[in-house]
């Protein structure tokens, strides 16, 4: 019965509308659909942008952690000297790939991590302790003086990772 009443009211309402009212109603409906569509597209775009930024931030964090762990292993005299150069090569390829994407996507300078890619490698491999122990030692034993140089390197350069993360976050 209630349904019949509602249907009756609807029919009466429709019959009382003239053509200009119908034009208005259709316009409202179309505008609403358009607005919903635009919002959903924009929302997807914003979400995709955020997801991508989060992905690259995670990549940078992982790279930072790998360098951190490796330096920790060096301090602990638990790195085979013969593995150092190959390790740096693999890291360099990984870092270069990531920085290339960051440069393409967010115009971030691709050489920002050069201190880790090149200076750190040189610091270690140009050190006489590395050269003297390369052939015969299974683990590289570093002097306290050299370990201090590594600590100084980290103190100076560890901020680079946060700088990159901020640049990713702030990019359009």
């Amino acid at each position, binding site marked *: 019965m209630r349904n019949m009443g509602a249907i009756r009211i609807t029919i009466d309402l429709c019959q009382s509308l003239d053509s200009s009212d119908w034009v208005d109603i259709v316009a409202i409906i179309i505008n609403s659909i358009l607005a919903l569509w635009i919002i959903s597209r924009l929302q997807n775009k914003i979400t995709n942008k955020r997801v991508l930024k989060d992905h690259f931030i995670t990549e940078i964090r992982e790279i930072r952690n790998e360098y951190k762990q490796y330096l920790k292993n060096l301090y602990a005299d638990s790195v085979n000297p013969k593995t150092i*150069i*190959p390790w*740096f*090569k693999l890291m*360099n*390829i990984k870092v*270069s790939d990531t920085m290339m994407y960051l440069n393409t996507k967010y115009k971030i300078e691709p050489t920002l991590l*050069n201190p880790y*890619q*090149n200076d750190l*490698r*040189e610091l270690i*491999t*140009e050190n006489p302790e590395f050269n003297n122990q390369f052939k015969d030692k299974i683990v590289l034993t570093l002097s306290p003086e050299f370990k201090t140089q590594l600590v100084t390197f980290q103190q100076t350069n560890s901020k680079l990772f946060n700088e990159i993360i901020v640049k990713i976050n702030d990019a359009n």
Partner: protein
Amino acid sequence: MTINLDNTAGYASSFLDEAFGNLIFDFTLENVKKTVEIISEQEPYWKEMIESKTYPEWESRRKKGERPKITIDHLPWYRLQNNKIVCEIWEQLG
């Protein structure tokens, strides 16, 4: 001649400096630039280091006559001398 530095286990900078630097010392910068092409796509830094740092530094040493330091005795090797390629032991220990 093309020297491809890719697909290896990596290098220490001193190794590349010595290898390419001695090439400059033995054959001059002009000849090496004309003859040698370096490929280093995995680590472009090496090509840049060799061409912008190693080459000019060793060319300068060559012009000043600053002989390279050696740490072991070598067999005879080739060097450009008075526009002729000569093979002999150019540097010795001690």
